[in-house]
């Protein structure tokens, strides 16, 4: 089934935040962010801005009726700076004016004076001086020290990954509207409507029931609007609260890049030990996460790095320690993969390092260490593994031996061009690792004309979740898709939502839709049985017709519904779902945190221009474990998009801060994401259908985040190409592998 949103998308008729028809009297906001990364505020001069004609009011922390606090995990993030600023771009004031242009002009007239404080941008330095967001955490299994003594080979090193801009094409934004009785309605481009509602209530000092957050769709999120959409919505709502006027703030790209968090950069130390058969016996890793100035979601991101520190490999002895380091960068946040990719990059680096030193191919080490079913992960869960099946299927489908031969011949006969190959297996756990978040609700109404409305806590941001929710309802009721409308996500309809994140949105909300539909269906069957004087066990609905056993009756869906209504049968249901089984005890860092795992393997081939340091991705060939995909068009799109986003992170996307913590890559002209020419020439995806029962909706495994990690393969393929040209290359393990790093890797002595 095609994406149900494509019709309006393609005609330019989908309504994003900035497209909502504006109410008369709407005012426009613009935030003033700190111009220094760390400093004590000595003066805030608002006068010139205040006097600009058209400026209605400028808000600061003094205008907050409730608490000046929006930190979700750790209460360390003020909405507005009070006496000091901790990062460049930190909101200090919010201008509200008659037009957006005036508001932006006024922002430029605000003068902030500060006394400089020491600026820290390096996470290792932050750790040295004890500047941590939360206490360090350690996941442990077996005994690494004993195991290292038994290892034939031991290698150590450093691996680093840079951050990544989400670069959703729709920037952050919100539009708040006053409602009676001190209430507010807010349209927000957020993945987490409840987070917006909760923090807004605290800032405004009003109960959550007075705040209606409504989200139709996002023009991309990728994690960047999970927590970081909240601030803009609250700024608007604060102004609406005081002025009783609608207030809108749709950020310009440069405001967005300067003031919103990115993927957490990591620097890590690893030590890996192998036996003579290349089996990994022991692995130690320390992650130094650059959290930025406040916690945001960094502690949760950090946790997922620990969960995924051994990727798709079984390692019997592991010690993984993670530090969330407080620096003076913009608070970093969720980004597709949520710390998983950062964790996986380190063990892949360790394996590549070992392979290099031992003179073997990395894939020889990768293959013999893949997870088997019932292997126990470092966090205590026994996996149902498809790792080996996916790898072997790849070998069967794509004949890698032939590819290896071609590359060897190419490299022997070309001096200025070299090709490189890599394998990238993945294992990604599905569920929120915070157990309580694994719950969802859905509201299903059948109207008296037989049409159906479905509302859930899921946010449509391009991943196709609306289509999947519709499929669940259509399949459960056995009605045509045209009967169903999926409506905007709204906190008055669905309360206490978990954010649309962790790849689990379709699973959680889809199950809730299923629960709701089944409850109504049961009532309808009971009612139909009564109408037809039949036993309700014999009643079914197929393609909008009531059946008794296998024989069709004259009772059609629309008749059934209107009659049920007339007989006062409840045609609405609020379904609730909480993932069973999952548990985790942080005091021992053990449990069964994931409903299931997603597996797959990618084979990447790249070609490097060794004269210029530029490159092309020739092919990414993937076998991916979909379980039983409920929508192959949508799921294939997730894989392709994830791969290219991952490749961007590993290649051209380079976040650059100067030593003063100022973002230099602050526009699309200085921060490049893949364009149509830089996508791989070929992406070949084989749908691997795993048969094992799982907790996914209709056995269709989550697909949002896992494919991004195939992109990591591009880094190692490129690195292999550099090494093919210059075996003595000093190139380390530091992503992204920009043309600069490639060229220096090729030639730097």
């Amino acid at each position, binding site marked *: 089934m*095609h*994406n149900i949103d*494509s*019709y*309006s*998308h*393609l*005609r*330019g008729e989908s309504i*994003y935040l*900035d*497209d909502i*028809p504006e109410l008369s009297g709407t005012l426009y906001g613009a935030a003033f962010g700190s111009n220094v990364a760390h400093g004590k505020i000595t003066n805030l001069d608002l006068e010139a801005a205040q006097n600009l004609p058209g400026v209605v009011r400028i808000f600061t922390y003094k205008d907050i009726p409730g608490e000046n606090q929006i930190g979700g995990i750790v209460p360390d993030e003020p909405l507005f700076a009070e006496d000091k600023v901790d990062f460049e771009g930190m909101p200090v004031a919010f201008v509200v004016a008659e037009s957006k242009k005036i508001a*932006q*002009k006024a922002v430029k007239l605000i003068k902030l004076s500060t006394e400089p404080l020491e600026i820290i941008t390096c996470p290792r330095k932050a750790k040295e001086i004890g500047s941590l967001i939360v206490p360090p955490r350690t996941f442990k299994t077996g005994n690494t020290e004993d195991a290292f003594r038994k290892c034939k080979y031991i290698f150590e090193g450093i691996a680093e990954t840079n951050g990544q801009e989400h*670069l*959703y*094409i*729709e*920037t952050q934004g919100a539009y708040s509207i006053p409602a009676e009785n001190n209430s507010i309605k807010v349209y927000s481009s957020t993945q987490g409507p409840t987070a917006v509602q909760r923090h807004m209530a605290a800032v405004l000092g009003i109960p959550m029931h007075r705040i209606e957050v409504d989200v139709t*769709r996002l*023009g*991309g*999120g*990728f994690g960047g609007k999970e927590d970081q959409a909240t601030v803009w919505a609250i700024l608007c709502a604060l102004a609406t609260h005081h002025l009783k006027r609608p207030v809108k703030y749709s950020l310009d790209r440069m405001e967005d890049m300067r003031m919103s968090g990115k993927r957490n950069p990591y620097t890590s130390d690893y030590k890996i030990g192998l036996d003579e058969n290349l089996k990994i016996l022991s692995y130690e890793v320390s992650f130094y996460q650059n959290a930025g100035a406040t916690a945001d979601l960094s502690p949760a991101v950090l946790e997922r790095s620990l969960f995924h520190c051994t990727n798709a490999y079984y390692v019997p002895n592991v010690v993984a320690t993670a530090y969330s380091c407080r620096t003076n960068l913009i608070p970093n946040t969720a980004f597709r993969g949520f710390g998983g990719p950062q964790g996986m990059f380190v063990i892949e680096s360790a394996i590549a390092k070992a392979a290099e030193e031992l003179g073997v191919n990395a894939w020889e080490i990768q293959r013999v260490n893949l997870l088997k079913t019932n292997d126990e992960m470092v966090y205590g869960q026994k996996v149902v593994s498809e790792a080996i099946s996916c790898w072997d299927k790849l070998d069967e489908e794509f004949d890698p031996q032939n590819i290896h031969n071609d590359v060897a011949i190419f490299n022997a006969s070309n*001096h*200025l061009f070299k090709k490189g190959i890599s394998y990238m297996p993945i294992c990604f756990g599905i569920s929120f690792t915070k157990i309580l978040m694994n719950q969802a609700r859905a509201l299903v109404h059948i109207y008296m004309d037989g049409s159906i409305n479905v509302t859930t806590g899921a946010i449509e*941001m*391009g*991943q196709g979740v609306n289509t999947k929710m519709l499929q669940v309802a259509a399949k459960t009721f056995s009605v045509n898709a045209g009967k169903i409308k999926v409506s905007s996500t709204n906190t008055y309809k669905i309360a206490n939502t978990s954010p649309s994140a962790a790849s689990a949105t379709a699973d959680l909300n889809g199950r809730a839709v299923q629960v709701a539909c089944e409850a109504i269906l049961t009532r309808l069957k009971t009612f139909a049985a009564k109408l037809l004087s039949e036993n309700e066990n014999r009643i079914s609905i197929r393609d909008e017709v009531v059946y008794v056993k296998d024989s069709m009756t004259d009772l059609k869906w629309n008749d059934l519904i209107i009659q049920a209504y007339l007989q006062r049968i409840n045609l609405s249901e609020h379904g609730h779902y909480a993932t069973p089984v999952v548990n985790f005890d942080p005091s021992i860092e053990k449990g069964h945190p994931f409903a299931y795992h997603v597996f797959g393997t990618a084979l990447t081939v790249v070609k490097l221009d060794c*004269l*210029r*340091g*530029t490159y*092309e991705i020739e092919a990414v060939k993937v076998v991916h474990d979909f379980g039983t995909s409920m929508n192959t*068009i949508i799921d*294939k*799109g997730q894989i*392709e*998009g*994830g791969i*290219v*986003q991952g490749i961007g992170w590993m290649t*051209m996307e*380079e976040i650059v801060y100067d030593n003063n913590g100022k973002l*230099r*890559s602050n*526009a*699309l*002209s*200085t921060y*490049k*994401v*893949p*364009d*149509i*020419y*830089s*996508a791989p020439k070929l992406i070949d995806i084989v749908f691997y259908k795993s048969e094992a029962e799982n907790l996914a909706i209709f056995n269709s495994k989550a697909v949002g985040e896992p494919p991004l990690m195939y992109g990591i393969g591009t880094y190692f393929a490129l690195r292999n190409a550099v090494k093919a040209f210059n075996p003595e290359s000093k190139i380390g393990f530091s992503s992204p592998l920009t*043309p600069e790093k490639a060229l220096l890797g090729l030639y730097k002595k």
Partner: protein
Amino acid sequence: MIQFILNERLIQTEVSPGMTLLDFIRYEKHLTGTKIGCREGDCGACTILVGDFLNDEINYSSVTSCLMAIGNAHGKHIVTIEGLNIEGLNAVQNAFAEEGATQCGFCTPGFIVSLCGLSFKDSQSFSDAIDAMNGNICRCTGYKSIERAGEKVAEIFTKRGSSDKIDFAVNNKIIPAYFQNISAWLKKLQSEIKREIFTEAPEVILSGGTDIYVQQHDTIDEKQISFISGRKLSNLIERNGEYCYISAAATVTDIANSKIIQKTFPELSHYIKLVSSTQIRNMATLAGNFVNASPIGDFSIFFLALDASIVLTDGNSEREIPLRNFYLGYKILDKRPGEHILKIKFRLSEDELFNFEKVSKRTNLDIASVNSAIHLKMDEQDIVEASISAGGVGPVPKFLEKTSAFLSGKKVSASLIDSAIKIADDEISPISDARGTEEYKRLLLSQLIKAHFIKLFPNLPLQKFS
């Protein structure tokens, strides 16, 4: 008063001529299908089509409306996504739907507009379809589904043969039927209105606007603007004896399509692909690239190696200066107040050697880390005269005077090139910035100098540089 046709409606407006077309479309006309992604021409979410007569035929170009002054829309047909909708989905939209080529949908209207614009082109192969979308960024799909949709659309066009472009596109449901009436309507409109928007005392002389709207989109509408590209110019690029003259109003696309330029630079299409996106090329001018004075301006580097001259005018008198003398310091030009470039002049030299190299973080459609051009007059294996230029290695687009002088009169060899690289390294002064470290830029220039010679002398044993 500014007048133009917007989709199917005549617009007559008194808004400031410097207002972006994007703001007018979205916030005055409430056509919200045109999206804002970056306001610097880098994402393509605000792509629209601009129709005007080329010779006697109406021709449409895709542009990013965030960088287009509404004054530049005067007398033209402007098409947004709403103006491409028919009952149901048009053929391009349908191809996207079939292939799942839209996910979050925010970039989608821009892609559709770009690809519908293919209707008006002479060549409509699969690679033309991809090129048409090269200024559109999608963050969701990874482009493969968009490529598949592009393939389907190109397939439709293979049946066009000699049919009229617009009739064919209408009959195949690529564009709505009203396009068949636009030509007559626009001709009538153009005959009724004054094409020039006249300003007594211009504060800004605006050509394509692709740079100034990136820097000053929030203030430029308050300024008095004189529009260069609004002027009717018949011969944008012409040959006169051994010289070629390029008008200040010629866009990069005009240059790419010029038979004169194509003949002189056989690799032109490759260079153009490195320069910018289709939408930007349709607006950006050579003169704009020169006066922008960016130290990495691609065409500055290109024409420095060719020893081009520029003709400047203040409206009364003209003066000609070599481009090499135009750049006095970082963003400082030998240009007096009130002066603007009238035309560019360079000697055509088909039998001489030329090469342009550029490396950036993203291979295509990015600003260079370092770029370089070389121009060689040869006598067998001897270099009679060498000109080499480089960008990103100092405060101005740099003509490498010493390196050029050193190479002149020498025989090409690996050791000559090694020596030239050392001289070049001494005359540059790159700094570390978002486009690369100083160390990298020095190494990169040396590699690009090697690349010039490897490309120009494929038969010489230069392949084995260390």
